[in-house]
């Protein structure tokens, strides 16, 4: 079989490109990033009252496999913490809200403070420690109690 040299070159470029991108993504995923400053979110936009300490907002879409495990993890964290509200938003239904907040992929989790300001965000399945650390920052008194 003769080798198509353009095809071979395309294969190499595609492989290197995909792997490079995946490594970059892996580094970013699950980690806290600074919150975007696109204005505070209000309870009526989220559909739930803001938490006294924090609110965790998960954006999901259809066909999003990691969104289920993310939901479960956030639910566990909320069950153990006090004053932390949680809401899941379907970015396909609430497309304008997602666009305004710069949500490009799912799952994306926003950590809001008690005033609804976005203090941090995580793309991909969040690392549990990252969410806990963000919550601790918003209520330092908690970490002194243990």
């Amino acid at each position: 079989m003769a080798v198509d040299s353009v095809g071979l070159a395309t294969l190499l470029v595609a492989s290197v490109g995909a792997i490079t991108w995946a490594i970059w993504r892996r580094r970013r995923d699950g980690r806290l990033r600074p919150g975007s400053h696109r204005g505070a979110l209000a309870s009526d936009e989220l559909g739930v009252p803001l938490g006294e300490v924090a609110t965790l907002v998960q954006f999901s879409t259809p066909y999003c496999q990691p969104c289920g495990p993310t939901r479960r993890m956030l639910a566990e964290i909320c069950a153990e913490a006090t004053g932390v509200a949680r809401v899941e938003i379907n970015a396909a239904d609430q497309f304008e809200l997602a666009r305004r907040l710069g949500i490009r992929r799912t799952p994306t989790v926003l950590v809001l403070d008690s005033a609804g300001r976005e203090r941090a965000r995580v793309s991909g399945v969040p690392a549990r420690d990252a969410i806990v650390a963000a919550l601790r920052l918003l209520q330092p008194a908690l970490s002194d109690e243990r």
Partner: protein
Amino acid sequence: MSADHGSAVGGVDPRGSRFGAAITTVVLAVVLVAGPDSPLGIVLVIFQAVMFAVGALLGPRRHPYAFVFRALVRPRLGPPGDLEDPAPPRFAQVVGLVFAVIAIVGVVAAWSGLFYAAVALAFAAALLNAAFGFCLGCEVYLLVRRGATR
């Protein structure tokens, strides 16, 4: 909203989809190296398009590659950890089918650039899924919506 009902209702072993993506990666790599002018390349791209179509229509459990997985690989593995919702891998098959059809159009119309681009993208998506467990639906859904509403 895609509810997390995968483990309760019709959940599938996620390793089957990833194994299928690995087969797809190899097939599409051969398609690229064979090229749009070779009988092997043409036969394989049509074959992979048919595979995508079966996966899109019947779902991941009845994908031909899943049968290979169950026959050759599954017996050597322990039970699955979590089961997954079949909708996301099925969506990925639909996307793959679209690219494979575009590649075939490239062959038929002798627009080889279209062929290389479409096969390369499908290859990259399959590679990312097989090697990194990357979720195509998570990435593409909002981008497509964004493009459609502009």
